[in-house]
């Protein structure tokens, strides 16, 4: 498993390839990329603050939990921090498994848990110069995470 917290962009295709390179037992690879939306043209950038150290550790715990739940042959999670412009990638999750159901479920689980457990916070910088409402956590995200509880 690979977990990274970085300010630089990531290469989703290279990360996906890395999970299947040199093996032929993987039947399904699911790649999720979360991007910065421009919110109808009003957003200049998002600024992502994170808790260094805990961010990596918490994402690693979430990935380990996914690996315990589903028969994964690989899992990668990368989360960016810093200033991110609309259209840019923010987060990447890749899961590989023999079958698609596990790969899909694990990728969704990872995203739901990253949303609610990984210590990142988004501040909005608006095109009109005002900055920064902090993005509010969504009840829908808590509900999405809750559905994985036994």
């Amino acid at each position, binding site marked *: 498993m690979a977990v990274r917290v970085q300010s630089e962009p990531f290469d989703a295709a290279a990360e996906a390839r890395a999970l299947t390179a040199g093996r032929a037992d993987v039947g399904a690879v699911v790649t999720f990329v*979360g991007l910065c939306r421009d919110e109808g043209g009003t957003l200049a950038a998002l600024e*992502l*603050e*994170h*808790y260094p*150290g*805990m961010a990596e*550790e*918490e994402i690693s715990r979430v990935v380990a939990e996914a690996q315990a739940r589903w028969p994964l042959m690989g899992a990668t999670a990368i*989360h960016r921090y810093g200033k991110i412009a609309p259209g840019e990638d*923010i*987060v990447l999750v890749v899961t590989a498994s023999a079958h698609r159901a596990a790969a899909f479920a694990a990728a969704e689980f990872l*995203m739901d848990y*990253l*949303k*609610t*457990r*990984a*210590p*990142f*916070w*988004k*501040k909005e910088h608006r095109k009109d110069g005002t900055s920064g409402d*902090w*993005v*509010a*956590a969504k009840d829908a*995200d808590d509900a999405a995470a809750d559905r994985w509880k036994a």
Partner: protein
Amino acid sequence: MKAVYFAWVRERVGATDEDIAPPAEVRTVGDLIGWLVSRGENYAYAFENAKAIRAAIDRKHVKHDALIAGAKEIAFFPPMTGG
């Protein structure tokens, strides 16, 4: 122990981190929030809706009833909005 703050908790407290030495009767995270609030308006503002504040002890999420004994780093922050 060290207290660290993130996002709007950090902005309201006015510091990224600080060393704190709460008295012995401050046993839980919830107690610590109460003690911080007693220290000034900036803390009162940051923790005005204490229930909404998340905490981590030594980089692990904890609830407000968690004991702080032995903690090196206690973090306070709003609900996460990553992903």
